Structures are given as structure tokens and as C-alpha cells.
């Protein structure tokens, strides 16, 4: 039978390594990047038409999926990063992976009138308001 000699210094070193490892995991960008990211978006209203501008640099047009469900516009897709074993990274600021973002419009959306274009890494979705008048706001009298 082997005799185990308790070495407090070794034990402390092991603990300090464990802390360093967990800190590295926390701060290493490869680990801290979210599995799904939300692309930055501006929404601007021009003459009653709502323009949703989403930043999607480096993404192919075919990889973007745009859906309208009721009054919610959803953009989703995947940004793929070229992987080459010969390439070493110094800096990786550009986010990659799956993305999804939904925008609920506070008005009735004309679902046939939604148009989208993709230019220079910016997805522009124009959303028109439906002709149908929303139900009038009712004022309730307090009795």
C-alpha cells in the first residue's frame, strides 16, 4: 500500500489553479460568447413606414430567414466563421454563431406589404401599417 503524504502547499496550488481555470473560462471570449446573439438594430419611421435596419455584416443573403407572424417580424440565421487550422487568431471581436431577433409592432402589420433588402451588410425591412383600423380605444367611465 502506498502512503499518501498530505502536502498543504500542493493542495493550495491545486486550488489556485482551479480558480485560475474558472476565471479564464469566464473571461476568455471563446467561452463567454453567447450561443445566440442579437444583431444591433435601428428602427426608423419615415412617412408612416417603419424601417427596421439590422446589422448583419459578412452574412450571405441566403442565410437570412425572415418571417412575419401576426405583428411580429423575426430575423434569424447563422453567421459562419471560416475555420482553417493553419490560421491563428490574435483578435476575434466579430461575433459569430446563430442569431435571432423578433420585433413586435404596436400596430396592425400589412403582412403582404413587408419588403426586405440586403445591402452592404445591412438588412432593411420595411413594414407598412394595415389599412384596417385597429379597434378604437375605449374610455371607461368610473362610476
Amino acid at each position, binding site marked *: 500500500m502506498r502512503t499518501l503524504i498530505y502536502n498543504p502547499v500542493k493542495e493550495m496550488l491545486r486550488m489556485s489553479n482551479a480558480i485560475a481555470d474558472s476565471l479564464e473560462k469566464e473571461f476568455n471570449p471563446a467561452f463567454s460568447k453567447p450561443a445566440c446573439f442579437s444583431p444591433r438594430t435601428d428602427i*426608423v419611421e419615415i412617412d408612416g413606414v417603419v424601417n427596421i435596419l439590422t446589422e448583419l*455584416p*459578412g452574412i450571405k443573403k441566403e442565410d437570412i430567414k425572415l418571417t412575419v407572424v401576426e405583428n411580429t417580424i423575426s430575423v434569424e440565421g447563422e453567421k459562419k466563421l471560416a475555420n482553417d487550422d*493553419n*490560421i*491563428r487568431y490574435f483578435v476575434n471581436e466579430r461575433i459569430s454563431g446563430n442569431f435571432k431577433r423578433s420585433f413586435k409592432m404596436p400596430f396592425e402589420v400589412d403582412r403582404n406589404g413587408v419588403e426586405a433588402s440586403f445591402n452592404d*451588410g445591412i438588412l432593411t425591412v420595411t413594414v407598412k401599417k394595415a389599412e384596417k383600423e385597429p379597434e378604437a380605444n375605449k374610455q371607461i367611465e368610473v362610476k
Partner: protein
Amino acid sequence: MAKDINKTANEDAIVKVSEDSWKEAFDRENWVLPEVNLMEDDEAFFVIASMPGVSKDDVRIKIEDGNLVLMGRIDRSKFEGKKILLKEINTGNFYRKFKVADSIDTQNVEASFKDGELILKLAKHERIKPKTIEIK
């Protein structure tokens, strides 16, 4: 500024920045840092910069005083004075400077711009390329 750029031969990749509109923009407009990836392999350095909203003609790349400068102009004038419902994008022209010193071969720079992304391939100078020495 101009005389430093003259030492580069690849005029397609590196364009002179001389237009007055660019000079004016430096004083008047916002400039933000593009997000970049920096990579290398044995032969070259790669820079990928995200510049969403910039068209191909509005990108400038120059190498001067050992610095690589990336610039992109953005035209958001049609949204000026309009009703903004959500603002997340840091609107501004893109500017970023990297020190490359003499580690790259300025004669051999390739640039492409697609879907709001600038991809640069900067060939390494012979001096800094890794060399394997065989033991006989």
C-alpha cells in the same frame, strides 16, 4: 500624406485619400471603431473588419508611417430628422489604425469588400516568415 502612399505599388488596393469630403468629414462627423478579426498564417496577416452600411466605393485603405489605416464612410443622411423608434447601432464612419511597422510587404496587399466586410490579406515580409532549418 500623399508622398507616403506613393511607395505602394498596388494602386487598386490602396487608394490615396485626397478628396476634400473626407477631410471635412473628419471634423464634422462621428467616427467609430469597426470590429475586427486579426489572424495570421505562415505567409500573411489577415484583417477582417465589419463595416455594415458602407458601400464598396466608400472604403479607403492606406499604409503610411508604418500604420495601416482602414476607413469607411457611411451615408445615413436619409434617416436624419426622422422619427427614431430604436437606436442600437453606433452610427458613424469607420476608422481604425493598426501598427504594422515594416513587418508587411506593402507591394503585396490584397483587399476585397463584400456584404459590409472588408477582408485584407497582408503578405508578410520575408524577414519575419518562419523558416525551418534542417539538421543534417
